[in-house]
């Protein structure tokens, strides 16, 4: 009964892609919330298409890890020209696929707290992981992992699972980078305060907003959303003495791209003032370059540069499995 409808839909889809054939098509793979109606995707697409005379198409997978999974499923036959939205924890495995070409030259990233030297991937935004709380419910937040670990057990936090979410993996590496061999001890003391561990960021943040936890693992820039969109000043990120682990989101050009010149142009565009100004208020992350007009409220630098923590990609890849095993052992006790 519905077959004609589906056929019509398919025909329409082919017709549309046929029309687009006149312009060169650039396929950019990214995670789905980046390309959603509420992410940076639509504005970036409009701005880039205005200057490139091309058709920019987003192809999406759930999150950064799923994006890499999809790319590995496709292998050499991938249609991707650019992959945007992997993070530093995924760089080593992304490079191992042999699918990526060298990145084009790029000037310094004046808003990134650490020097960038990777030959294949360029950063386009970044953030600090942090525990976010509501000032009305928790007047004084802990100022370090030590404080948090020593806090009474009725301070409740919700975190994401490192096996299924990038913030969860970030927290795992954060604790490992700061506490090394003592990481298990910190986790043992944090455990009674952990309400639950969720599959992804949305569940955790949703539970926090429902009042189920006093603090949630998110980003220092999360309050900026509430300030700018909801005009709500009650959310704040707790700044920890030990420093904050970074998530740097990167992009790379595939070796198999048929339009390497256009791909390089897009990568350069992502680093332009225009694109960098779109990022903060749509992706709620810091741009890697400071736009001339500055940043909106909520993007003040709360963490001193020297307190930025990031394990080098090789180190992160080396530590990951052992840190996960240690975490699983403590959390299952």
């Amino acid at each position, binding site marked *: 009964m519905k077959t004609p409808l589906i056929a019509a839909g398919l025909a329409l889809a082919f017709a549309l892609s046929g029309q687009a054939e006149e312009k060169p098509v650039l396929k950019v793979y990214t995670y789905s919330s980046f390309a959603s109606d509420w992410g940076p995707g639509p504005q970036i697409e409009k701005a880039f298409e205005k200057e490139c005379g091309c058709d920019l198409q987003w192809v999406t997978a759930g999150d950064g890890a799923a994006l890499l999974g999809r790319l590995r499923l496709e292998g050499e036959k991938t249609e991707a020209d650019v992959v945007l939205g992997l993070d530093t924890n995924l760089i080593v495995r992304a490079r191992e696929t042999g699918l990526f070409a060298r990145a084009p030259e790029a000037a310094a990233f004046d808003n990134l707290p650490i020097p960038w030297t990777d030959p294949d991937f360029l950063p386009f935004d970044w953030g600090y992981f942090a525990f976010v709380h509501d000032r009305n419910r928790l007047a004084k937040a802990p100022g370090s992992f030590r404080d948090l670990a020593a806090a009474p057990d009725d301070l409740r936090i919700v975190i994401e699972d490192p096996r299924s979410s990038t913030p969860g993996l970030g927290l795992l590496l954060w604790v490992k980078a700061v506490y090394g061999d003592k990481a298990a001890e910190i986790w043992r003391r944090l455990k009674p305060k952990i*309400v639950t*561990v969720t599959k992804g960021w949305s569940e955790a943040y949703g539970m926090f907003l429902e009042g189920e936890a006093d603090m949630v693992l998110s980003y220092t820039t999360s309050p900026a959303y509430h300030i700018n*969109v909801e005009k709500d000043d009650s959310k704040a990120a707790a700044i920890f003495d030990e420093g904050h682990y970074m998530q740097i989101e990167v992009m790379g050009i595939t070796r198999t791209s048929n339009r390497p010149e256009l791909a390089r142009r897009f990568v350069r565009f992502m680093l332009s003032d225009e694109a960098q100004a779109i990022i903060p208020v749509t992706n709620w992350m810091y741009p890697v370059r400071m736009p001339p007009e500055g940043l909106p409220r909520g993007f003040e630098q709360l963490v001193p540069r020297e307190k930025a923590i990031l394990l080098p990609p090789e180190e992160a890849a080396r530590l990951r499995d052992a840190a996960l095993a240690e975490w699983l052992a403590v959390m299952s006790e």
Partner: protein
Amino acid sequence: MKGGANPLVWIGGGAAALVLLLAFGTLAALALRAESASGLGPGDWAAIRFTLLQALISAALSVLLALPVARALARRHFPGKRLLTTLLGAPFILPVIVAVLGIVTIFGRRGLVNAALAALGLPPIEIYGLGGIVLAHVFFNLPLATRLFLQAHLSIPAEHFRLAAALGFSDRAVRRHLERPAIARVLPGAFVTILLLCLTSFAVALTLGGGPRATTIELAIYQAFTFDFDLGRAALLALVELALCAVAASSALAAGTAPEAAPSLVAAPWRPDGRSPAARIVDGGWILLAALFLLLPTGSIALGGLVHLADLPAAIWPALGRSLLVALAAMTLTLSLALGLAGLALALEGRWGRVIEGIGFLPLATSPMVLGAGLFILLFPTFPPRTLALPVTALVNGVMSLPFALRALLPEMRQIEADHGRLADALGLVGLARLRRLHLPLLARPLGFSAGLTAALSMGDLGVIALFATPTEATLPMQVQLLMASYRMGAASAAALVLLLASLALFWIFDRGGRAHARA
């Protein structure tokens, strides 16, 4: 369903082949792409044990609680009963992430229940742990079990009740001689269906289970795929899931009782039992408890959505259109496949009939992650995933809903064959004519129910579309998730309300249509 020239048997064969291809073909595709062979670690075995434990408890409790609720609904008549019965089905069709938040607002630390306990000076309850998982799984599956049992109650012929009244049967005798055989026909199938649904649980189990102790097989598969990209292990774990399914399904089907030979008239019969005030109070209590348990979280979701209705973004409407299209296509597919499979199972009967019935359960035991990835490998790069997003989603949703339709249709069709099979044989009524003249008119009620259920289910996200679709062709459940991923929890709850209403409306329309066409 006798006769070799029966086209239904051919459709059934095709349906069985399609299910087998989706279940095993995708698994094989994944295994063949694996870069290294890997076995199961101790963590995997722990996950398998835990998965089985929580699924058994969840399924047993769902079924046990559904028994008195279904009886109460069958015995009592009150204004708004139809609406209530429909609304009680809502949890089953809610997107998982939304339902979890609904449960938390009622049963969580700051939830309604704890507020009430605090007001009474009682200590708070903590749901996180095995209890939370079971609570959530009962919340999701009690509606399904109740509906399947209610169908069974309604299939007890009115003459039997009149006879029981004439013979002066006690309530207990009615229960023993009339209810028990009817329930026994659907109980094993209902139990296995729910068991399998709980076996593939992931986000619910992790979130309400309180952490890694609540690791299920499906989480291990997800981890193998995205965290380790170990396709071999993902395929192996999926195979374990299928094996568990096979054991569960075959033991339940073996326990199934033979159909009763009795004339089947499908209408709500007058009943002589449950006249005492005590019985009325007990029934009322069960209906009230079930309504509170199921409607409070759903209500809080609806309320949260209503408050944020003004935030509803325009992008919701095209997504709703796409979801409706997918749901109707999937429903058409499901009904054709289910009628075919049921016809084939009846034509074969005996051991092979049971095998076919078992195949009908397979979609429930298929890991959504492996199904999606396997399909992707099979289709890419011959077919561009972009253009296939909606057809693939409709196909997968249609097949995934098959077990529910089969559960509702097969026992009824078996009964019809037992009642009228010989007469139809004598009249030479075979093939499609037999389906049209004999089965379809008598099947109106379960057909309507199956159509409504599968359409509503297909409105929800069954996890596969994420690998294929891009946000520009997102379905409604996908938009709900994207809104949440962009901090817009308020707008997401409004969109979830739209999804809930649309799913309920679809269910209502088809279920009602079925009831209207049922012959009294």
